[in-house]
């Protein structure tokens, strides 16, 4: 069965600095990878996804993520963090070999951007 690990419970960065939120995955087939963001008392908002093709995926709000097959990673990045980026970030994966194409989420990483 597929799984996702987000090794950092919290990431702290200063406004204007680059940010990285880490994600690693495990699947039997091909991975389909997603990043979502959750603000307090809100549902999850889709940021970006990797299905196939270019390893660097660009998404909403200036975020991007790099798919690395050899390291089984899909880290979320942004060149210059904003205070408004502070939120809870979830990485999720679907396994092409899994019946029903279930989306499995990591435990989440809190991002805090300080001015």
């Amino acid at each position, binding site marked *: 069965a597929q799984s*996702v690990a987000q090794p950092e419970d919290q990431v702290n960065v200063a406004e204007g600095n680059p940010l990285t939120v880490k994600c690693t995955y495990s699947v039997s087939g091909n991975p*389909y990878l*997603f990043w*979502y963001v959750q603000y307090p*008392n*809100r*549902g*999850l*908002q*889709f940021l970006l*996804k990797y*299905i196939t093709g270019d390893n660097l995926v660009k998404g909403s709000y200036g975020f991007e993520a790099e798919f690395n097959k050899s390291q089984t990673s899909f880290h979320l990045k942004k060149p210059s963090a904003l205070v408004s980026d502070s939120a809870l970030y*979830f990485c*999720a994966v*679907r396994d*092409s070999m899994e*019946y*029903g*194409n*279930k*989306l*499995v*989420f*990591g*435990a*989440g990483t809190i991002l805090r951007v300080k001015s």
Partner: protein
Amino acid sequence: EAGVAQSPRYKIIEKRQSVAFWCNPISGHATLYWYQQILGQGPKLLIQFQNNGVVDDSQLPKDRFSAERLKGVDSTLKIQPAKLEDSAVYLCASNEQMGSRVATDTQYFGPGTRLTVL
């Protein structure tokens, strides 16, 4: 385009009571999901519908949880009787595709219902 709608947004009940949540997915979306998100954890799939049929309910505690999507549009999730450990946010999500095309399709989430069981 309207998003996924859920109600109520908040619910407080006592243990052993029953509760129901409602979800209306994005218009035209064939696949609907219910997730349970316990504080400090990622969402966990409870049940997946394709139109009005169940695709995956392997993680649904069927002794107390039930869900239906009778006309293939909106859905209800019920807990009866509730336990303390059911305190969580219940998220509904939908995506347009069905079958194998679900794999690469984006899921869109509603705002969730925060359930507190006392």
